[in-house]
């Protein structure tokens, strides 16, 4: 059977993938450039008997999906720039209470209301550190619709596996761009379901007592186990505590369950890296430009390669170090004042090899922009 190919926007791709992953509850508040996600959810969800809510703001959007996740649903919200800022408090709540959810941030130019209709990749650090306090987070991204579909499904899978919010970091350019998407068949991409407790009714269930492998089987709210959930530091029953031993254990658990599995979470693509003298590192929309530069230069025999990172957090430092080992130059291509470039510098040996190729005026970074910076780096002038 031939597979169906559709010519659709990235935002709609994200919706299709979320449904594929089993999403049945969405709440959101309109904001450019993510509104199409909310609109397509409103169209699709009632047809499959799922729930769609347009809430009064982004705060309540995220809060309400967290509530719905607790009752056993796969949930998501989508937003951009200012809306993502409003979500930070509830994002931390989901981290602390270990409630799976997916938050799509379709990045636009910031700070503040900034550039609503233009692309940017300025929220990379916000995804990592936007909510207060020490914590770990998972954040995924993609540069084309086929990968965006896969990464969205992965976002749901990882949210369940690690009991955590996952930030799907998209951007205005991939979100609004139309290109062909071949819809994966059922079963083609694995879909991970929630791990539920096998503790029978009437037996003391400990919602926050990790198993030996660090995982915490859940029990649907409104089901057979009654327990407490709080954003305060809590014990194994979910009850608030200030016991230093319990606090120590919980913060380490929250960090370790993600940081210690960074290798499992790492997702990337690589092009021509084997013998590359100049390694481009990029992600999201910028990776499209970087790929164009690399392929056209390869045709001229220049030894360029591209590492496209799809899992931004936890940052795949080991991967970057290994792939850059023999590079003479490393060029990080991104649409911000330099965010991932700092992580790359931290990751590699001899960080003086690392340069930033960026564009921050709202226009999509072009191959010429990258080539000009490359000429400078190679000492050839523009």
């Amino acid at each position, binding site marked *: 059977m031939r597979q169906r190919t559709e010519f659709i926007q990235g935002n709609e791709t994200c919706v299709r993938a979320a449904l594929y992953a089993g999403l049945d509850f969405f709440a959101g508040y309109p904001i450019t450039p993510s509104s199409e996600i909310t609109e397509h959810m409103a169209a699709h969800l*009632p047809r499959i*008997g799922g729930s769609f809510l347009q809430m009064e703001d982004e*705060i309540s959007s995220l*809060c*309400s999906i967290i*509530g719905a*996740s607790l*009752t056993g649903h796969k949930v998501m919200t989508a937003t951009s720039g200012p809306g993502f800022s409003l979500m930070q408090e509830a994002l931390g709540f989901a981290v602390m209470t270990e409630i799976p959810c997916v938050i799509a941030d379709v990045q636009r130019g910031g700070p503040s209301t900034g550039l609503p209709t233009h692309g940017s990749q300025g929220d990379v650090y916000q995804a990592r550190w936007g909510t207060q306090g020490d914590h770990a987070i998972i954040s995924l991204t993609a540069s084309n619709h086929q990968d965006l579909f896969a990464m969205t499904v992965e976002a749901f899978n990882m949210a369940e596996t690690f009991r955590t919010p996952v930030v799907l970091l998209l951007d205005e350019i991939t979100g609004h761009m139309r290109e062909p998407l071949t819809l994966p068949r059922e079963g083609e991409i694995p879909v991970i379901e929630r791990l539920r407790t096998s503790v029978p009714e009437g037996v003391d269930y400990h919602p926050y007592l990790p198993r030996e492998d660090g995982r915490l089987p859940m029990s649907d709210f409104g089901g057979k186990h*009654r327990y407490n959930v709080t*954003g305060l530091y809590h014990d194994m029953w979910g009850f608030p505590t200030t016991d230093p031993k319990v606090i120590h254990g919980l913060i380490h658990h929250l960090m370790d369950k993600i940081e210690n599995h960074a290798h499992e979470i790492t997702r990337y693509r690589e092009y021509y890296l084997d013998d590359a003298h100049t390694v481009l590192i990029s992600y999201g929309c910028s990776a499209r430009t970087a790929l164009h530069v690399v392929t056209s230069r390869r045709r001229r025999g220049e030894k360029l390669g591209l590492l496209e990172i799809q899992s931004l957090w936890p940052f795949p430092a080991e991967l970057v170090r290994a792939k850059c080992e023999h590079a003479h130059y490393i060029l990080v291509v991104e649409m911000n004042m330099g965010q991932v470039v700092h992580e790359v510098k931290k990751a590699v040996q001899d960080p003086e090899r690392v340069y930033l190729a960026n564009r921050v005026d709202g226009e999509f970074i072009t191959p010429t922009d990258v080539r000009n910076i490359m000429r400078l780096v190679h000492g050839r002038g523009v």
Partner: protein
Amino acid sequence: MAIDQYLRKRFFPHIWCAGCGHGIVLNNMLRAVDQLQINQNEMVMVSGIGCSSRISGYVDFHSLHTLHGRALAFATGVKMSQPNLTVICPMGDGDALAIGGNHFIHACRRNMDLTAIVMNNRIYGMTGGQFSPLSGTGITATTSPQKTIDREFDIISLSLASGATFVARTTAYHYKEITNYIKEALQHPGFSVVEILSQCPTHFGRRNKQGDATEMLQRYRQNTTSIGSEAKQKNPELIERGIFRQETAPEYCAEYAELINRAQQS
């Protein structure tokens, strides 16, 4: 005592000060649940942050202690995703109407079958006695050493204007009314608001020379009256207690179920 079965005694003693009105609310709320014989496995309590919100830890229901002001937002997701559950949201006055004011009016407007309880002690208890949007003018608080000039909300008018379909008020002194109104509210198929004037002797009482908890409760006896009573006509200053609205209107989850039907047929 019958309500024992609804308490998580493992987590006592509670954090409230002696004489705090929040315990009275807890006691009489549980009586309402008991009288209605609601299955504990179908009861969800969602609260925000504040002394009042700590109530959710002590009840043996599904309990969700969330963020300051956001109880109704979380509750909306719980109820929408599982409409068979009975969802009750106890909130402080600052919690419900300062930081949570926007969620409050929108929850009233949506008319989802949730029960909102506002435990109104006219002060921020948990953070040490700052004034709240319910304090009213002339009140001494840690952030109003010269007394407040901020006017207060009237929770009842706000709820009525925003579209809540069940609206009632009583006080911690009138504990039987607490049970009765919460019972009515839990049974009401739509968004219910029950305002309970509660006392914080530690911060409000002490700073405003209102005496101890007993005196504060006595004051609620004296400065309130039933809706439309003769006393109210003689003394318009009295605060009315009773059910201000009880009417049915399309309930959100029911309407959404209809919407699904339409979407699946077309």
